[in-house]
């Protein structure tokens, strides 16, 4: 599969609140996304997954590292060329209400990217907007109404229509269904799957919800405190999670099957403050498998994949195994 996006050693540090230290929100992330693929990024709040999505698009400027999109290195592009390229990379947010301007009609919101990029005439834009609304399952008359007249699920459809307006190659969906009710979530998840087929899209799906990530993703990366700790094909990751954090995360998801009250790996504590990450492996204070080396030395990444499919895990437990 040809490559659409390649991220190497991406770093984004923020000054800490007291101004003396740094928050390592994204701390050396590498990942690859193939054309037509969905990469799921999963992790708990504060792990840096949303910052990562925004840093890839340069909505937040990276501190260092490289992002190559469809053959073009983004980190060195000037503003004008970055803006032109951004047509091909769109983002869908969690809270469709907060991301839609309440003073604009839905038609104006969905058509706005076309206006900004100077695409088409007023008439062709109007047609394009109606077509987009239909594509995401809204009535044409929605164009004349305002965001507050719509339910959460419909507002997410509006956000998706806007993201599609410029016919992007990549959509980063940041918790696209987390604010929605269960019965509405499935409608939006099906829509995202359909659009991917119809428009040949690639997705980066950022979510804390493992079931949602498993449902849509081809490859899944697990983040903890600014770093990716494990990456594998979705089936592999959920069937044979190898990093102790991934194992605990998966075992924590309540299963709707009362007969099988799962054996849970209970992690102590919560994710540490990224202003003051633990030394060595950042997960070691909560890790049931922690060894002495984990407290002092950051682990390296190992490929424990078989049959040519990479399964990357960054953990000292694999120091003897696989290719470092």
């Amino acid at each position, binding site marked *: 599969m040809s490559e659409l996006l390649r991220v190497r050693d991406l770093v984004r540090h923020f000054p800490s609140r007291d101004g003396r230290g740094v928050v390592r929100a994204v701390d050396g992330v590498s990942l690859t996304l193939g054309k037509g693929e969905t990469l799921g990024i999963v992790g708990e709040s504060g792990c840096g997954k949303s910052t990562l999505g925004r840093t890839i698009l340069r909505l937040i400027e990276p501190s260092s590292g490289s992002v190559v999109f469809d053959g073009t290195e983004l980190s060195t592009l000037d503003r004008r060329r970055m803006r032109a390229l951004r047509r091909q990379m769109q983002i869908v947010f969690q809270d469709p209400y907060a991301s839609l301007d309440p003073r604009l009609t839905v038609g104006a919101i969905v058509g706005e990217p076309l206006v900004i990029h100077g695409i088409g005439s007023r008439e062709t834009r109007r047609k394009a907007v109606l077509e987009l609304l239909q594509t995401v399952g809204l009535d044409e008359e929605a164009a004349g109404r305002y965001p507050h007249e719509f339910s959460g699920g419909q507002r997410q459809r509006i956000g998706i229509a806007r993201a599609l307006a410029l016919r992007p190659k990549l959509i980063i969906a940041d918790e696209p269904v987390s604010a929605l009710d*269960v019965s509405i979530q*499935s409608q939006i998840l099906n829509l995202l799957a359909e659009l991917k087929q119809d428009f040949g899209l690639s997705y980066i799906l950022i979510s804390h919800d493992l079931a949602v990530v*498993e*449902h849509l993703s081809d490859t899944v990366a697990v983040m903890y405190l600014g770093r990716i700790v494990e990456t594998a094909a979705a089936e592999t990751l959920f069937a044979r999670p190898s990093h102790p954090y991934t194992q605990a995360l998966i075992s924590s*998801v*309540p*299963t*709707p*099957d*009362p007969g099988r009250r799962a054996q849970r790996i209970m992690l102590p504590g919560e994710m540490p403050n990224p202003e003051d990450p633990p030394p060595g492996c950042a997960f070691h204070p909560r890790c049931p498998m922690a060894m002495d080396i984990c407290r002092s030395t950051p682990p390296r990444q190992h490929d424990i994949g078989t049959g040519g499919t990479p399964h990357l895990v960054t953990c000292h437990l694999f120091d003897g195994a696989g290719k470092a």
Partner: protein
Amino acid sequence: MIDDVSFALTRGETLGLVGESGCGKSVTAMAVMGLNPEPPSRVESGRILLEGRDLLGLGPAMREIRGERIGMIFQEPMTSLNPTYTIRFQIAEAIRLHRPVSRARAHAEVLELLRMVGIGAPERRMNQYPHELSGGLRQRVMIAMAIACRPALLIADEPTTALDVTVQSQILDLIKRLQAEMGMSVLLITHDLGIVAETCDRVIVMYAGRIVEEAAVGALYARPLHPYTAGLMASRPRLGHRQPVLPTIPGMVPSPGQRGAGCHFADRCARVQDRCRDTAPPLEHVEAERKLACWNPMP
């Protein structure tokens, strides 16, 4: 908002109240607590019995029941914790509101409660303010306040929805442990069918202000009878059960103004019949331990 909602909880039992936003599950819980603002809201009819006493006629005496016989925890602890007081002050106040204990005694009980809810270094933690604690610790503090008077009933309204999944398991585990230790009944309100399956004995499914189905957890998950329950279960992606297209429930929940005379689910239901639109199905026993409100249940 809610219509003819009846249920009972036995001592030591965990009852799940499940449904999507706007189904009336929180309104039901607030009604039990006597916390819905009046006006505008009003309990038009019905009774709420706790240990044989009707709570609806109590008036100001309800304040004694609340916090003493019924404890409550919410999704977002910061809405119930006062940011300007220390943890110690707030828990002590919860105790002294209902029992005239000395300052020293209250202090000792605060420490004991913080230990019970699994807060490490309680001597240090109790002198901190809510904003200095993580989300998981705040939820533990709120649980400590809720159980301070050893209530007979704990109402937990989406207690883990704001928490990360690894912290969620800690809190659910804690609630289960405390329930066993103290013999409390728990009314757990949630939208998450996974949480219900793992923590509840019985479950009530609500839709648009009414109970549509009530059953023991095992029976409900083995065979949901109401098309809404079945649809809700099927539409949620499940770990390890990947499918190309998720089953969906079309449309959306009607707002209170849009609810018709018949079954509120009729417009979204694949099994709808003519009478569903005219006449609301009553909630009736279909088995000894099972109730259903549906004219045309799942086969």
